């Protein structure tokens, strides 16, 4: 059975091979990421049956858990790894034709590094190892945001850099605290010892770590970098950022809060934080006239919704949250990719410039519409089952506070529907000039795959639902995690 370490090793190795391959033949570099991610995706799919019985634990370098670093590949980890490789693959196919000018070699190398960092964070079982992969992820995304090299790009990447480093710093201090208290860095080990320590002392490290990770996963007060970063990065990169980077950050927060600390009475606070992020994200998106900033703010909103779902900590809502997460990765990726080419054709990022795009680029605008409909949660598309699960799970809890929060969720869907439909109307029902020119073949294939995925998930969600429920049980019950790691 193939060793899951390859999931990290192969992209890392290939990332550093990119300059060598480039010097050999200029054309080949573009295909390296595609190959790596194709390999990753196939590997994940082959691992699924094995992981479903019991999670695989690998001890790197032969040391037993409390000392050595171990990888924990449970259904949750595999879900994220598969999602990262899928989204990465689609975006890399898209960027075959999208990234032509500028330092192409650096782009592909950093792209590979970003994905390895993400897969690493998702699979690691060790706190410090989490921090290392987290750093790789952040640094490569700082660089990629400034890829265009124009004034806005550099300025927003610097802002992202400053906030990211502050966050990582806090994370490091938190890990230091934990190491000081428990003397170990292994998550399972810490999880086991957590009960022995008096709860108040644990609070500070938890908040520091959550804040550190929160910066990357765009929770409300910490997400100020996101709108600038996403709007000035090239569309393929902003698709990856909002599709994968934020989700991975959220995974990390969830992993720490649920498995490592597992203090259940903080969940309500996270629920409120999630709703706050959702409302502010939607309100800001409503006030936007620039398409990419609007999509960025809507990402903040969706993250808030997923956080709210995870924070309710029942099997149903977490499955719903994960479903919504998968849906968000796919449809937000689709939106950014289609918006990318529309901006490329129309020249400016303003929504008014997108008038009449329905006639000029019919397939891309159809992709945008499908993505928008699925994000808003209209039935035949993927968003609806996610929202359905979240709301039904929340109502099952029965608390009046939760019902009010659910009301707010539905209200925010209305706002979300407004600004998305406004854009769709601009696409189809307003007359614009410009000749009719289709997007290139690679971009079209990328978009079509995502569209098929969305409709498939929307029409037959049961296929993903079982896998997600096992992933949510993996997240929620601490004991099975600890047991499988320290057996």
């Amino acid at each position, binding site marked *: 059975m193939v060793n899951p370490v390859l999931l990290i090793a192969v992209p890392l190795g290939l990332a550093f091979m990119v300059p060598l391959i480039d010097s050999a033949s200029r054309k080949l570099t573009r295909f390296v990421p595609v190959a790596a991610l194709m390999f990753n995706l196939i590997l994940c799919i082959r691992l699924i049956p094995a992981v479903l019985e019991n999670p695989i634990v690998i001890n790197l370098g032969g040391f037993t858990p409390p000392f050595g670093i171990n990888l924990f590949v449970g259904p949750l980890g595999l879900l994220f790894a598969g999602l990262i490789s899928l989204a990465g693959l689609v975006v890399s196919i898209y960027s075959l034709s999208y990234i032509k000018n500028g330092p192409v070699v650096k782009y592909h190398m950093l792209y590979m590094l970003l994905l390895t960092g993400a897969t690493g964070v998702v699979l690691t079982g060790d706190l410090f190892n989490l921090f290392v992969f987290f750093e790789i992820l952040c640094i490569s995304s700082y660089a990629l945001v400034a890829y265009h090299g124009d004034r806005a790009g550099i300025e927003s990447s610097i802002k992202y850099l400053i906030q990211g480093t502050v966050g990582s710093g806090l994370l490091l201090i938190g890990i230091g605290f934990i190491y000081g208290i428990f003397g170990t860095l292994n998550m399972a080990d810490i999880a086991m010892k957590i009960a022995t320590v008096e709860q108040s002392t644990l609070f500070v490290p938890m908040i520091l770590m959550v804040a550190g990770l929160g910066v990357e996963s765009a929770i409300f007060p910490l997400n100020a970098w996101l709108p600038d970063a996403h709007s000035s990065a090239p569309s393929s990169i902003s698709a990856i950022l909002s599709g994968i980077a934020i989700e991975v950050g959220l995974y990390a927060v969830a992993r720490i809060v649920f498995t490592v600390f597992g203090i259940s009475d903080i969940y309500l606070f996270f629920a409120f934080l999630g709703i706050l992020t959702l409302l502010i994200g939607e309100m800001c998106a409503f006030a936007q006239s620039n398409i990419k900033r609007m999509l960025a703010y809507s990402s903040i909103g969706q993250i808030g919704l997923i956080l709210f779902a995870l924070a309710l900590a029942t099997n149903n809502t977490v499955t719903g949250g994960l479903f919504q997460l998968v849906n968000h990765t796919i449809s937000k990726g689709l939106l950014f990719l289609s918006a990318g080419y529309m901006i490329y054709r129309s020249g400016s990022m303003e929504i008014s410039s997108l008038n009449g795009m329905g006639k000029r680029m019919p397939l891309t605008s159809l992709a945008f519409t499908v993505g928008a409909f699925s994000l808003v949660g209209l039935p035949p598309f993927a968003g609806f089952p996610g929202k359905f699960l979240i709301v039904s799970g929340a109502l099952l809890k029965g608390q009046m506070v939760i019902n009010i929060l659910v009301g707010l969720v539905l209200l925010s869907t209305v706002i979300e529907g407004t600004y998305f439909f*406004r854009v769709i109307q601009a696409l189809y029902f307003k007359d614009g000039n410009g000749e009719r020119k289709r997007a290139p073949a690679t971009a079209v294939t990328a978009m079509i795959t995502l569209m098929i995925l969305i409709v498939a998930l929307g029409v037959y969600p049961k296929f993903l639902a079982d896998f997600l429920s096992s992933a949510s049980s993996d997240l929620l019950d601490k004991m099975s995690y600890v047991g499988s790691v320290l057996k």
Partner: protein
Amino acid sequence: MTGMEILLLVAFGGVMLTYILGRISSSLRNTFAVVLSLVLVVIIALMYDKTGETIFYRGFFGIPMSFRIDALSWLFAMATSVLGCLSVIFSLSYMSDRKNISFYYSMLFLVNAGMLGVVFSGDLLSFFIFWEIMSWSTFLLISFNRGPAVAAGLKYIIMSIIGSMAMLAGTISLYTNYGTLNIADLSHLTVSASPGYQLFLLIIFGVAFGIKNAVMPLHTWLPDAYTEAPSPFSAVLSGMLTRMGIYGFLLIIYVVVGAARFLHAADSTVSSFNYVLAWLGAITIVIPTFIAMLQNDAKRLLAWHGIGQGGYMILGIAFGTNMGVAGGIFHTLNHAIYIVLLFMSVAAIQYRTGGVRDLNSLGGLIKKMPVAFIGALLGICGLIGVPLTNGFVSKWMIYKTLISGRAPFLAFAALIGSWGTILSVYKFLHNIFLGQLPEKYRDIKQSPFNMKLPIIVLSSTILLFGILPGLPLRVINKIVVSFGFDSLNISLWGIVSESGMLNTINLFAAILAGLIAVWLFFRIGARTIPVKQDDNYAAGAAVPRDRYSYTAKYYDPLFRMISPYLKDIFNTFYMKIADLTGYLSNGIRKIYTGYVGNYVMYIVLFISLMIFVQMKWSPW
């Protein structure tokens, strides 16, 4: 594969096929569209008097999604498909000179399929899914002809999303409480629900269906949507789509909450909800009908009447006696027929006069377009409820319930509403068809055959249902029985109820005899000379061309008295809310100031706040 699955498959398959065929050749697509709609009508007709439920899909988290057919769904499905077929036939020539017509036809079929889905769905989940498909395809069609239609479409979709979210909340709360979404099971389970929960259910679903059926406070989207949508579609929109709200009300009040069984229990929440709903219906009758008088645009006038007539249906349904519910359903059917007829005659006028809808600049078209005139005349007779038309029978039933149910003020509101209809609808007929024919319309031709066919068909149904109400009432009686009421004493010519009966055949015979007698008396008189419109009394002077008609400010003496009270306060209120959210969101966006210093300060602030809260109150 029961009939219903075939039907839905054909309907949704049709959508894709029309679009593809449209790419190939327009004539192929037109014939396919007509054939498809006829096939739909035939399939539904074959499913007469069948009841049953089949589960067709378990893919959605294992929740069984089923189709259900009973008398109520059959009636609505039949009306939807017939009117859909007529409007497709009508729009063959109406839309022939427009751009991307295949998109229009495929969306029309999508709406039609969505409606059929809603009507046949056996559980609330598939009901919601088809409801959503119907809503956003209507949105795409309303904003079809550009310009102001875009704003109307946006207003429509926002209100319909609010409605859908309310319905989603209701459906899911039912799912969480009872574990099943199947309507049949729910109707047994909800009886045991606590009054508070029942009221919550009724209100949530009431808001969702109230928005769709444009009950008074939630009606503001309707006038813009009807006016801006392409006319054949606004016919379908006003005829059947808005009446899905009524189907929803029926479903919720009488099936899910099962009100019929204990409606008359004194303290039950349902009867108080119905009472409030009845009063809302009464207000929805009176105010929009008087606002309709102020309108100068033909379609906007009809739109306001759409809202007004919706009030009658709500009144009938909310007043929980068997005659009332039967009257409400019958009025929904009748209203669908004559409002589609009126919109089609306006569309025929628009088609010939190049899109002119303004009531002040038309006139005298009776000589040029007699078929459209006949359609409009019978349409407004139905709308008013002139005896011998179908509107009269259903209004008679509604009044009978109101009066014998000892609610004279509701009856008063309804009667005054019908008088308001008479005034505004006569202005509609007079300004378009009667009076002097303007110079520029001197040489317009008749409307083409496929516009005349639907008008003639609908006009004859109005008279047919008016004279022989037994035909539709037998079906409606089955519905009322299925709701748990005791059946009405229906016969082919009318209704016998304890406090007075209606016999339309005698009425028809009397009026016919009167007509013949008066016609003979008139024939005794000397032969009359046909004369053109210029040979007219103008105190000896020549008839001034194009300026010799009284159309603008038709009811000015009345307007000066009532127009200050008839401003659409709800519309301005909603607009204020929209601006408020826009202003608020601009304010919130200010948080992201753009200086990195602030952002980092937010992070530090967040952590210090957390620690402070923990130390002070230690909630965790």
